[in-house]
């Protein structure tokens, strides 16, 4: 009994947001009378909200380094507008324009990264300036007009589908109010291959942990987890298979998610990004080149903002002066819902994905049931607050129980160990002054080195 409770408590943080995602999906599934989870809408969901996911990944990295980027919406609009003008004005082929657009995004990111990393102006200020600057430039460039339509091959980024082998079903099947009359083979294959990779990865990871004598979850729990994962994955690709197949943007998203997860979890550069955000001075004194790291995180954000701008313009088949309005807030909210910490050093790419899905589901679901933008904004604001409050509440609880456990396990050892001050100091600090996060509350301390950074 205790083990189950322990398991749930330790994983609450990890699975909490995932559960929230499921709850939101079910809630809107019911509210929209099943429309939300119709195959046609699943495609919509991906295509309409892909930009949030792209931005959320970049924003997660920015927030992990302890900064923020308010300019992503304006940058997306500016890059989208520039690309549209280039395509319609000069007739450059779309693939050239896409490359140029991503370069432009990188340049903009470098501009902002320079001020943040090397001049050390707070990112809030730099990107607030960027938000105004690039919105203004967008309007100047477009002269208040909308540029449309855009070339068809460009539009495919936002609304195209991966070429597929389509099998017409001999007869139409009705199931759960969903109509099936065709199957896209590639989409199904995609699901199968992804499932196999996921299972293999999980099994290898588990074996590795065990080989190093680290604790792994119980076997039944692990199997349940795998089955659920595979089921959800295949249900998802099946939905795609019975409608138009895999959207191009979907492939882009998968590549981004897998690629960034790998970089952040497995590569030294990812480790260094976390280190800079966790404690910049300690990272610097460990040989991490903190300024270039911060700089490149902003360059990366610029490139992803550009990509988001392209996707959005392609989907809309137009570049408008007001494109990308409030994108930054969706992206920031997604990152925080996905478990980022405002003090930096904490957050995962998968968290950003979950956060973006929460935001996307809410956008989509609320639109279907016909809520106005006014209500949508109010509700999204509340969800953000509740999600982060839940996370903080949860973290405090886990920390308290862990400290006690550590103390108990140390105490039996007897000699020089030092369990009590940890518990005592944390406890008293929490009771005396709840606001400052641990580690930042020190006044004075060892003054000699304080100013040296």
């Amino acid at each position, binding site marked *: 009994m205790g083990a189950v409770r322990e398991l749930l408590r330790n994983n609450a943080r990890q699975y909490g947001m995932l559960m929230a995602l499921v709850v939101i999906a079910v809630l809107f599934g019911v509210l929209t009378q099943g429309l939300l989870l119709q195959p046609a809408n699943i495609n919509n969901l991906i295509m309409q909200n892909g930009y949030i996911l792209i931005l959320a990944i970049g924003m997660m990295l920015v927030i992990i380094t302890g900064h923020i980027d308010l300019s992503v919406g304006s940058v997306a609009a500016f890059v989208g507008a520039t690309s549209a003008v280039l395509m319609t004005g000069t007739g450059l082929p779309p693939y050239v324009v896409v490359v140029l657009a991503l370069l432009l995004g990188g340049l903009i990111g470098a501009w902002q990264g320079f001020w943040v990393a090397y001049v050390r102006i707070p990112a809030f200020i730099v990107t607030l300036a960027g938000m105004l600057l690039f919105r203004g430039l967008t309007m100047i460039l477009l002269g208040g007009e909308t540029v449309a339509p855009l070339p068809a091959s460009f539009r495919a980024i936002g609304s195209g589908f991966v070429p597929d082998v389509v099998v017409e079903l001999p007869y139409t099947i009705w199931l759960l109010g969903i109509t099936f009359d065709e199957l896209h083979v590639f989409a199904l294959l995609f699901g199968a291959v992804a499932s196999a990779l996921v299972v293999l990865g999980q099994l290898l990871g588990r074996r590795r942990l065990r080989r*190093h*004598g680290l604790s792994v979850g119980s076997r039944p729990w692990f199997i349940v987890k795998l089955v659920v994962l595979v089921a959800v994955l295949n249900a998802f690709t099946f939905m795609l298979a019975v409608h138009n197949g895999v959207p191009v943007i979907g492939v882009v998203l998968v590549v981004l998610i897998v690629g960034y997860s790998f970089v952040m979890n*497995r*590569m*030294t550069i990812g*480790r260094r990004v*976390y*280190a800079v955000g*966790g*404690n910049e*001075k*300690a*990272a*610097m*004194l*460990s*040989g991490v*080149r903190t300024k270039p790291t911060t700089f490149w995180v902003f360059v990366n954000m610029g490139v992803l903002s550009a990509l988001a701008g392209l996707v959005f313009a392609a989907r809309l088949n137009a570049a408008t002066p007001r494109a990308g309005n409030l994108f930054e807030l969706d992206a920031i909210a997604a990152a925080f819902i996905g478990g980022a910490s405002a003090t930096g*050093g*904490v957050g995962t790419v998968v968290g950003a994905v979950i956060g973006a899905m929460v935001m996307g589901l809410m956008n989509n679901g609320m639109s279907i049931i016909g809520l106005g933008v006014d209500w949508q904004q109010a509700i999204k604001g509340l969800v953000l607050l509740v999600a982060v409050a839940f996370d903080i509440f949860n973290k405090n609880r886990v*920390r308290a*129980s*862990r400290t*006690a*456990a*550590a*103390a*108990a*396990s*140390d*105490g039996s*050892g007897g*000699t*020089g*160990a*030092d*369990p*009590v*001050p*940890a518990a*005592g*100091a944390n*406890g*008293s600090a929490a*009771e*005396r*002054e709840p606001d400052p996060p*641990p*580690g930042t509350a*020190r*006044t*004075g*301390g*060892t*003054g*000699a*080195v*304080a*100013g*040296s950074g």
Partner: protein
Amino acid sequence: MGDTILEMRGITKAFPGVVALGGVDLRVRRGEIHALVGENGAGKSTLMNVLSGVYPHGSYGGDILVDGRVRAFRSVRDSEAAGIAIIHQELALVPQLSIAENIMLGNERTSWGVIDLDHTTRRARELLAEVGLAEDPGAPVAALSVGRQQLVEIAKALAKDVRLLILDEPTSALNETDSAKLLRLLRELRGQGITCIMISHKLNEIIEIADTITVLRDGRTIETLDPESGAVTEDRIISGMVGRDLDHRFPDRVPEIGETFFEVRDWTVDHPTQADRRVVDGVGLHVRRGEIVGLAGLMGAGRTEFAMSVFGRSYGRFAGGTVIKDGREIRTRHVGEAIANGIAYVPEDRKELGLILDDDIRRNLTLAGLERISARAVIDRGGEVVRAEDLRRRLRVKSRSVLQTTGELSGGNQQKVVLGKWMFSEPDLLILDEPTRGIDVGAKYEIYQIVHRLTAQGKGVLLISSELPELLGMCDRIYTMAQGRVTGELPRAEADQEALMKLMTTTTKTRG
């Protein structure tokens, strides 16, 4: 003097899963300085938090009697009303507010909610005079040194008409001069009838100042000592604290010293923001293989600044100097270059500069040597865990596994992780900056052993410490610094506290 101001009887306090206090008795006479000693984890701070109402009545067992009456403090406010004030190790001043505002904070005299500024300034000035601090009450606290901030804290306590003042490690962040000043002030306060409970790891100070010493161990009162009897020595107190006789506070070592392999010449550094302020001025020193070289100096002598500057110019503006290793000049223009050239620096402030507290032990251990566990920038996470676990075991870091967050560890274990991080990068020269500050006797001993093992492997160690007994106990050779210059070099045989102190203060008079 025979009159008892405070009695704590059979105090117990448990946290989920651990008993912090298992029945502590404490009796404090009116007008005395009562020292409370014990290893980290003995329960000193917990006991003081019980006394001051941080842990409210009902959350602990036993009785607190003040002036012979049983008291039930529900909050810090209650205990303050009874004349008890606690000054925590980490000061609770608001840096942006002025000295006067800080002193009167929470205790302002107001009329209709408006603060009486005249009264605030006047009262603050009186109190500052009382603690011997000649500062403008309108100056912001942030501009003061740690030692002066401590005095402001005491003035703040006095403003509340304190009768029983509790100080938690008051001198741990202070240099010798400021410490002496603080101890003198405590004596003066005693003369005015204010009782003092002082928690400290600095046993020499305690013997010097305390009227009574109570030793705690594992949440229990072990003994009460009377220094005036003359029989109380540091070793006597330590044996009470650790529960065993400690003949040697420093492990034995037979130095095997090789040839000089590391040398710094004419190292000069300017202050990072003040244009013509020279912080390190032409420092030269050398280290031999297998040697522990000490660097003694008062606060502000430039030791840390010198070390950080050599270590990849991570302090101030470089103004000249060369580093020679194994006979050829090496460059240390940034930390990465210093690490690549086999230099490591264990910083003074492990929480601010040494660790990423949110990260686990493994990630902290490998951060400075990621390329050792990665190929083409991809980390071998299996190998990483194995090597981190190996280090953890060798360093005897007390934790559940290498995946435990470092923020949850005790100070001594955190320090071992920082040391481990630099052992992982396999340096030839280790610069240790105050490696045992604020950690208990047992962990200190283990850290000394680790340092000895490193020198036995032929590495050189440069040890910066403000505790002269530590330098004398550990080092083969000691340099002294004052005002950014090397003022002396003594082999171990010729060094003692007086000689070092004389060299450390040789030029301080010229600057006041």
